[in-house]
């Protein structure tokens, strides 16, 4: 019947040579597998171990550091955490019986090889993680990093990635409510495509990935299994690209958003009918991962008949079926008495379903192929107790010199004309320019609950139509800061995402992260990683918001050049009523503009240093997390009392960028003055415009609320300086005594950069 390598055969032929290196395993890892099994693995077992022990699935290099997220916690951080790290996604209680689950994940390497499918399936994968928790996905966001904007290859990747996300996300009917896009030569041969999804559920609908209840059926449903994505986790995500090597294109999965959309509705109906005991999506490592994880988290045993897997390609071998990363598949554990009901729902949605086997009490994961046993392992050895590495760590040899090269030596503009020219260059630079060329390709309306989306600082979704309860989400990372100091850089990402949630009027409550780094085999990269994780864990403890889950992506480099450390930090906030949300742009005439916080001369790693002087060096801005928390509390109180009609954080590009975006959001001009910042904080006009000091927000306050708002700031000891007033009639931005820019000119500068490289924006 078959010529599979059976357990019996493995025992009989102990000396057979096995291709473990081609599957991405090291010699000592292979020896360890032999030791665990007491024999050589069958080819099916070798396939399973190779994908599950890959860096991508096992976190073998990062595990010892990630533990901090579980250790550095206070009781306040556990209070609203329903599910923490280790499940498909973290779950946070947001009140009124509702919970929110969210997670951000990388799909970097597939998106370089095959940008369209790589990005599309990145969205698909993270959405299935959210469904697995029992939640309805309600929004997506993406964090994108591309190479130099004018490199000939960048347009290929940008077009592919954007249309892939647009195609998949739009077809799923999920609003895309925000994200980030950066261009930097360090990402030229290794773009970053991170995708975030968020879902909502009632507390009682929570589902977990475990296989409990001996005799319960193990059911595979969704798309058929094909030959795509074989070895995606081990070959692609856990190695660097090498010049002249094979294309690795077959390791990229192919997505079908319609199949996923149907799967979402089907799963939600299964949950509503209480027809599922445990559920797991099939992502990296496919059936190998789902069976071993479900069994490890449950009663410990499972029996599977692999030939029952429905195939797209009947020529697939057992090993290929175990490793395939075909998309849009789920595995559920179902009570026998509920199987009929389960099948009725999948058949209503025309979702193909096959019963593969059942939960056992043997403590073994046994997989048969046409009646012959090809896998017999203890599931924890595959899914949980993989290798753990303490990789060598080394302080980067180049770092002291880089930190010593401060931006303080760079020439500051002084005249109005010079400042005007620099202002326009900064706001038109690729990283500061409008991203509407990308975001206009995403549906932000579907589901009818989008209260805020790009270009506002955070996205916001209504959860409950009656009460108005909602959540806000923002994500940030600044690779330039992290290159200068990964500890502070990670805290800066946290502080910025936290502030971006706070300016919407929501209260930050939880964190998810996607840690993008170079090769863990490079001790300097490992040092960057260890410092970034420590910074993030310490920062979360200080702010008392838990990390609920996340993802590590290593091997992001081309040749020997690692990317800048890019720890993407996503912060979730809660708001009682989305009607009280605060937009980022000015809407009204004659509102007072207050700058909250203090400006220092902090230009190291800034957008200004990069754009005007092509400079990266020094130490990134200082972070005060208690200061951020106090600022967030002020914004929340201001939102509740309705004293603030707009709020925009200051980060990349400093006050210059914030003012430009606030003007352009609704086309309302303003007059601002820098004199008082200059005199109070002892900085130059140039620094007042371009410094990236943290803990600052620009708010717009209606005149009639002026006294009350000042009182709010004084009472909390938050420095507030009135630095301008909105002026709807002027059609311009005037920086008093220095320069004036008509809104049309500002808009042209800010909005034409991406179209110049990638094509026109519809309606320009």
């Amino acid at each position, binding site marked *: 019947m078959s010529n599979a390598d059976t357990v019996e055969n493995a025992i009989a032929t102990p000396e057979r040579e096995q291709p473990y290196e081609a599957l991405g395993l090291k010699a000592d890892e292979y020896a360890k597998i032999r030791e665990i099994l007491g024999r050589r693995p069958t080819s099916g077992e070798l396939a399973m171990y190779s994908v599950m022990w890959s860096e991508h699935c096992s976190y073998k290099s990062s595990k010892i550091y990630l533990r901090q997220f579980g250790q550095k916690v206070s009781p306040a951080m556990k209070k609203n955490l329903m599910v923490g790290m280790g499940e498909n996604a973290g779950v946070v209680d947001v009140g009124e019986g509702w919970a929110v689950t969210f997670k951000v994940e990388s799909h970097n390497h597939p998106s370089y090889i095959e940008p369209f499918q790589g990005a599309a399936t990145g969205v698909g994968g993270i959405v299935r993680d959210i469904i697995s928790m029992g939640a309805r996905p309600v929004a997506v966001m993406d964090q994108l990093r591309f190479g130099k904007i004018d490199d000939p290859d960048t347009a290929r990747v940008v077009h592919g990635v954007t249309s892939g996300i647009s195609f998949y996300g739009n*077809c799923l009917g999920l609003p895309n409510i925000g994200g980030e896009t950066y261009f930097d030569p360090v990402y030229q041969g290794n773009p970053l495509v991170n995708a975030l999804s968020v879902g909502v559920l009632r507390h009682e609908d929570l589902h977990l990935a475990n296989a409990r209840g001996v005799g319960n059926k193990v059911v595979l449903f969704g798309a058929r299994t094909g030959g795509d994505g074989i070895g995606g986790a081990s070959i692609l995500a856990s190695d660097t690209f090498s010049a002249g090597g094979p294309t690795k294109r077959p390791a990229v999965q192919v997505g079908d958003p319609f199949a996923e959309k149907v799967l979402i509705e089907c799963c939600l109906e299964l949950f509503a009918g209480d027809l599922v005991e445990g559920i797991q999506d099939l992502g990296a490592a496919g059936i190998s991962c789902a069976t071993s994880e479900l069994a490890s988290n449950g009663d410990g045993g499972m029996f599977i008949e692999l030939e029952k897997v429905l195939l797209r390609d009947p020529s697939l071998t057992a090993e290929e079926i175990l490793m395939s990363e075909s998309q849009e598949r789920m595995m559920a554990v179902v009570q026998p008495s509920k199987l009929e009901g389960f099948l009725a729902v999948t058949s209503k949605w*025309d979702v193909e379903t096959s019963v593969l086997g059942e939960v056992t009490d043997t403590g073994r994961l046994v997989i048969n192929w046409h009646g012959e046993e090809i896998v017999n392992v203890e599931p924890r050895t595959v899914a949980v107790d993989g290798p753990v590495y303490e990789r060598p760590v080394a302080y980067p040899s180049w770092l002291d010199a880089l930190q010593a090269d401060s931006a303080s030596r760079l020439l500051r503009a002084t005249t109005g004309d010079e400042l005007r020219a620099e202002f326009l260059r900064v706001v038109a630079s690729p990283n500061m320019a409008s991203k509407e060329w990308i975001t206009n390709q*995403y549906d932000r309306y*579907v589901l*009818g609950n989008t*209260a805020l989306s790009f270009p506002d600082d955070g996205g916001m979704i209504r959860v409950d139509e009656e009460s108005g309860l909602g959540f806000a989400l923002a994500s940030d990372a600044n690779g330039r800061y992290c290159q200068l100091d990964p500890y502070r850089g990670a805290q800066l990402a946290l502080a910025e995402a936290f502030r971006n949630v706070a300016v919407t009027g929501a209260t930050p409550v939880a964190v998810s992260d996607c840690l993008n780094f170079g090769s863990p085999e490079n001790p300097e990269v490992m040092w960057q990683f260890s410092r970034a994780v420590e910074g993030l864990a310490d920062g979360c403890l200080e702010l008392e918001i838990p990390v609920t889950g996340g993802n590590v992506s290593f091997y992001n480099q081309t040749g020997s050049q690692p990317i800048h450390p890019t720890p993407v930090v996503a912060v979730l906030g809660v708001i009682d009523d989305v009607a009280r949300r605060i937009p980022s742009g000015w*809407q009204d005439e004659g509102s007072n503009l207050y700058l909250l916080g203090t400006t220092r001369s902090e230009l190291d790693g800034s957008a200004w240093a990069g754009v005007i002087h092509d400079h990266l060096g020094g130490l990134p801005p200082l972070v005060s997390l208690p200061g951020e928390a106090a600022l967030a509390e002020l914004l929340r109180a201001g939102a509740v009392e309705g004293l603030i009609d707009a709020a925009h954080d200051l980060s990349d590009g400093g006050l210059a960028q914030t003012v430009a975006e606030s003007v352009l959001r*609704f086309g309302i001009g303003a007059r601002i003055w820098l004199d008082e910042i200059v005199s109070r904080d002892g900085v130059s006009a140039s620094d007042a415009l371009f410094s990236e000091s943290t803990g600052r927000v620009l708010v717009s306050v209606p005149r009639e609320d002026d006294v009350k708002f000042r009182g709010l700031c004084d009472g909390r000891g938050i420095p507030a300086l009135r630095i301008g007033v909105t002026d709807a009639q002027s059609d311009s931005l005037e920086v008093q005594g220095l320069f004036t820019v008509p809104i049309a000119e500002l808009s042209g500068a800010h909005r034409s950069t991406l179209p110049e490289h990638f094509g026109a924006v519809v309606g320009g």
Partner: protein
Amino acid sequence: MTRVGVVTFPGSLDDRDAQRAVRFAGAEPVALWHGDHDLQGVDAVVLPGGFSYGDYLRCGAIASHSPIMREVVSAAERGVPVLGICNGFQMLTEAHLLPGGLIRNDHGSFICRDQLLRVENASTAWTNAFAVGQEITIPLKNGEGGYIASAETLERLEGEGLVTFRYVGVNPNGSLNDIAGVSNERGNVVGLMPHPEHAIEPGFGPDTALAMRSGVDGLGLFTSALQSLLAV
């Protein structure tokens, strides 16, 4: 209470939004299923946006042959108000309830924007709450929204006043004659590419000059249907 059916296909995306719009207009939304032959006695039907059956063939092509569509076609022939939004518009043209067809946007990309439209015909079942020449802002989001028809058909549409909505300022997808929506001769069947169900609730619609996301111009389509049903 007037009952308005909203058909859900497996790949429908804006069906809940359309139900909400019906509710906001003061009618009772009724969920209809693509595989059924039953319109449950509704007074009007909305075919919502989405990707019906994945739309890997022409958009709406397979949906136009679904069981529920046979019922929709016969209801439309009896004069029941039928509104097709985006993918629903594509289905109505594929089912020959409306003339012309929709092709890939001329610029090749999916586009989402707040779109200005002019109401060209205010006597259909879905536009009588508007005035002719009124300009309204409705979110548009599609990849295949370019309206095409033969020269004779276009001439007939223009001559008989069957162009219901026209794009103003920006033609976002290369539609001929800037056509955003059309109706049948009887005026009970209307299809348009923009999504009126996303401009019905303050706080969640397009931006207006007055306030962020406060646009509710889309509500007029749904209240029109109620008016026309009451008038019968």
